[in-house]
């Protein structure tokens, strides 16, 4: 029985069917649960797919190849983020200073708090360097990890966990701390949890999504310039 199911994944049919099923179910549950943050569709769709992939012993690589069209669509979707940015250009012109300052500080705090703590707890150099770009959008994060001397595959895992964690936690924190301004919500999600955070921000509001996309893109560009310096300053290269 299982070989025939696995063979479906030799074409996009298996991957697309499985992903669309999992995603529709997750979105249905999200709407039924009145958009509760803990029902984040990205997270639950991922868990559903993982459950099916493990249950039918489908190799994860095969599943990813089978659904590579979806992965590809991320690229034009990233280009498309410019449109909402343009739509909110007046708000951006008005608030660019606090946004930029908080982004630079958020970036520094994210790196220092995570790698600093990992360093204190005695993590290996590989883990430290791979962890640095964890809040950066995956394609940029991978190349930064590579230049710093980390392991890109490990970085991908850290990026993903930060994205999913932020998408789950941030909306809860917003409720708890009464963070209501859509730009504050969106910019925070994008700065910390990159693309997955941006997807979550779009579920909060259009404006939050737009500023989340902005934060993600700016953080990526900023990181390319800044992170080699931070790594140097933290002395990771010197200590070991």
């Amino acid at each position: 029985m299982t070989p025939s199911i696995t063979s479906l994944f030799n074409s996009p049919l298996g991957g697309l069917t499985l992903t669309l099923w999992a995603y529709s179910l997750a979105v249905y549950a999200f709407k039924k649960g009145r958009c509760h943050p803990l029902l984040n569709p990205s997270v639950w769709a991922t868990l559903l797919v993982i459950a099916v992939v493990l249950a039918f012993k489908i190799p994860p690589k095969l599943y990813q190849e089978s659904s590579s069209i979806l992965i590809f669509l991320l690229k034009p979707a990233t280009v498309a983020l410019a449109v909402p940015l343009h739509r909110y250009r007046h708000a951006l012109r008005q608030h660019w200073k606090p946004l930029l300052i908080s982004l630079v500080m958020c970036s520094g705090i994210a790196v220092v708090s995570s790698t600093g703590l990992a360093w204190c707890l005695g993590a290996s150099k590989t883990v430290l360097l791979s962890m640095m770009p964890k809040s950066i959008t995956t394609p940029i994060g991978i190349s930064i990890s590579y230049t710093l001397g980390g392991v890109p595959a490990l970085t991908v895992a850290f990026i993903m966990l930060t994205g999913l964690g932020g998408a789950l936690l941030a909306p809860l924190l917003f409720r708890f701390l009464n963070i209501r301004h859509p730009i504050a919500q969106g910019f925070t999600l994008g700065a910390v949890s990159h693309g997955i955070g941006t997807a979550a921000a779009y579920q909060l509001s259009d404006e939050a999504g737009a500023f989340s996309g902005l934060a993600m893109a700016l953080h990526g560009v900023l990181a390319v310039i800044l992170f080699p310096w931070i790594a140097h300053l933290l002395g990771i290269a010197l200590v070991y």
Partner: protein
Amino acid sequence: MLYGFFLLLLLNAVGDMISHQFHLLIPGHVIGMLLLWAYLSIRGNHPIPESLNRAVSPLLAYLALFFVPINVGILDHLSIFQTEGSVIAWAMGVGLIVPLLFTAITLEWWFRRTEATNSTAPLQHSKQQS
């Protein structure tokens, strides 16, 4: 819609070429986004082309869907978490919550402050007039 989608792909391709040509760490689609942003900014207050709008809205509406296959890739990295799992969990948890709290609280404070001054400014003005 097709023309809009073509425009997105074209800018993505141009971004890729720029990225390769100058050996940039920034991937082509992020450069493509900056290019489209620049293009729309130059057009200023002209309305966004309808075909572009039609191509963009479904892409952004299903952003979360496109991440699912990438997320599943976490299955390949589970072994690393068996060796340094607890250290990673602490660092990732703290490294997630601290910047989240900082950015959200700072920006919310800023927007409440600016909105408060914006709403009191006309009030003071009218007081002076009376």
